[in-house]
């Protein structure tokens, strides 16, 4: 290994690999460090990879990458205990190029993606934990690893070390997260015959479906469940704010079992065999929890900088774009021969100018809002279910009578005011 690199990227996930790929492609001498046995071995994701942001890095990647199924239908189920109001969009424009998104299994995908970065000239070293950044004169100049003689130097260090980002925290870039800033997600990969998946989810061959679950899936706690189709497996999971689990004293894997056995979900997964159980945190504090992301000789990308759009379950795409923009910035800094914070701040500007920063800002109050007002999940979703049941049950009552009953079911004038206020509030935080 050379004595000094142009850049060291810490962490081989979507953000880190994207950054290393573009850096190597741009002619930089880049080291990609991964603490796991192989890229992907520590990584967890519900499973949706967005085509556009990946294609910004490798055009046509899906022709050779190990993707599972292109998604043609996205369903949203608002669940009560024995019912669900579902809406969905299915569009066959998503079944062909250029596609919208794919399900992936990260164990396969990240290994493939990291190998592509290596093809471009990045040096990948697995099984290496970065203990801390080496700081000299307030400037990050390298990393200290857990290998013997493990100090490695570079002009710039890119931290892509994921949600826990102990490295950015040690630099003082962000404080320790609070339980209401992270969601704990557990999931299982369930083996199920390919044909059975296609029949149950109403799919042609090589088409996929995602279902997001709200309401009773999380027992009314702020969070969501999900059920995604892979080739011959399903990914099923549930994530809630850690603070919610603490408050309600619920075991996360029991919540997962609750979802798996929910009468609205069980028929989809019946007869499947669990293959793997996974748990991971998701940074959900949003824009307001983002710490410092640029310093002298250092840039923070992906989950490590809280880049998750929880409302639209986007994360890996934000990670990839942040990795790409970090690479652009580092290549520019290399040309200028200046790796100071003021030059690297170009990354922050680019990030905040594109969809990543814009969406982070747009939804900056959403997590806090829904956390503060749990009634959306534990009152209004059951209310919608009840209204649908009343309206669609044919029992001899006239539709006017039914409407009146539903209207009265909303409660007293005071309760109706509260509902109106909550509708306004949700419009305000989502607009």
């Amino acid at each position: 290994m050379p004595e000094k690199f142009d850049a060291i990227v810490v962490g081989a996930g979507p953000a880190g690999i994207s950054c290393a790929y573009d850096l190597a492609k741009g002619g930089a001498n880049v080291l990609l460090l991964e603490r796991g046995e192989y890229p992907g071995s520590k990584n967890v994701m519900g499973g949706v990879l967005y085509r556009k942001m990946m294609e910004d890095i490798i055009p046509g990647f899906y022709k050779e990458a190990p993707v599972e199924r292109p998604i043609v239908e996205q369903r949203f189920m608002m669940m009560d205990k024995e019912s669900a109001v579902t809406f969905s969009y299915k569009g066959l424009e998503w079944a062909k190029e250029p596609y919208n998104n794919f399900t992936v299994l990260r164990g396969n995908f990240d290994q493939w993606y990291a190998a592509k970065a290596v093809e471009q000239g990045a040096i990948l070293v697995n099984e290496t934990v970065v203990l801390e950044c080496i700081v000299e004169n307030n400037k990050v100049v390298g990393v200290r690893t857990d290998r013997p003689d493990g100090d490695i130097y570079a002009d710039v260090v890119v931290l892509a070390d994921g949600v826990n980002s102990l490295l950015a925290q040690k630099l003082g870039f962000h404080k320790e997260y609070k339980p209401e800033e992270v969601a704990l997600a557990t999931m299982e990969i369930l083996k199920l015959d390919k044909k059975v998946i296609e029949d149950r989810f109403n799919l042609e061959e090589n088409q996929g479906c995602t279902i997001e679950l709200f309401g009773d899936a999380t027992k009314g706690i702020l969070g969501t469940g999900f059920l995604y189709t892979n080739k011959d497996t399903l990914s099923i999971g549930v994530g809630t704010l850690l603070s919610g689990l603490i408050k309600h004293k619920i075991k996360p894997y029991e919540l997962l079992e609750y979802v798996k056995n929910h009468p609205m979900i069980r028929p989809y997964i019946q007869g499947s065999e669990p293959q793997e159980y996974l748990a991971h945190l998701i940074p959900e504090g949003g824009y307001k929890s983002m710490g410092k992301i640029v310093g002298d000789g250092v840039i923070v990308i992906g989950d490590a900088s809280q880049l998750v759009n929880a409302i639209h379950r986007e994360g890996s795409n934000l990670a990839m774009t942040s990795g790409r923009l970090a690479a652009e910035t580092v290549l520019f800094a290399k040309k200028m021969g200046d790796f100071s914070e003021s030059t690297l701040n170009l990354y922050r500007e680019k990030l905040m100018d594109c969809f990543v920063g814009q969406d982070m800002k747009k939804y900056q109050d959403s997590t806090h809002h829904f956390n503060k007002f749990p009634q959306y999940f534990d009152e209004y979703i059951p209310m919608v279910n009840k209204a649908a049941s009343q309206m669609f049950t044919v029992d001899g009552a006239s539709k006017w009578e039914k409407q009146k009953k539903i209207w009265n079911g909303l409660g007293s004038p005071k309760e109706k005011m509260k509902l109106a206020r909550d509708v306004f509030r949700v419009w305000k935080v989502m607009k």
Partner: protein
Amino acid sequence: MEGDEIMSEQKKYSTIEEKQYLVRFNADTKSHLHVKDEDICLNHCPDKICTIFCPAEIYKWEDIRMHVGYEGCHECGSCRIGCPHQNIKWEYPKGGHGIVFRLG
């Protein structure tokens, strides 16, 4: 609905032991997780909430001390963030050790 109630409902469902059996671990010989001050768990933490929210249930209260089954840790970080007394020293396992996800 509180935790106990769900538990009684779910006896027929798969247990954490069954789930953990599906996962590959390459445990280091020494723990990457440490309770900083055992007295806090014993005398100042009646809820011992880590024994509830840890997704791998590696924290187990044994009469007077917290047993930490680090070998089954998913390295999610919840205990570090969720411990009401910030009483857990949390590090990554040595390179190449710890949990090895094969699929998701």
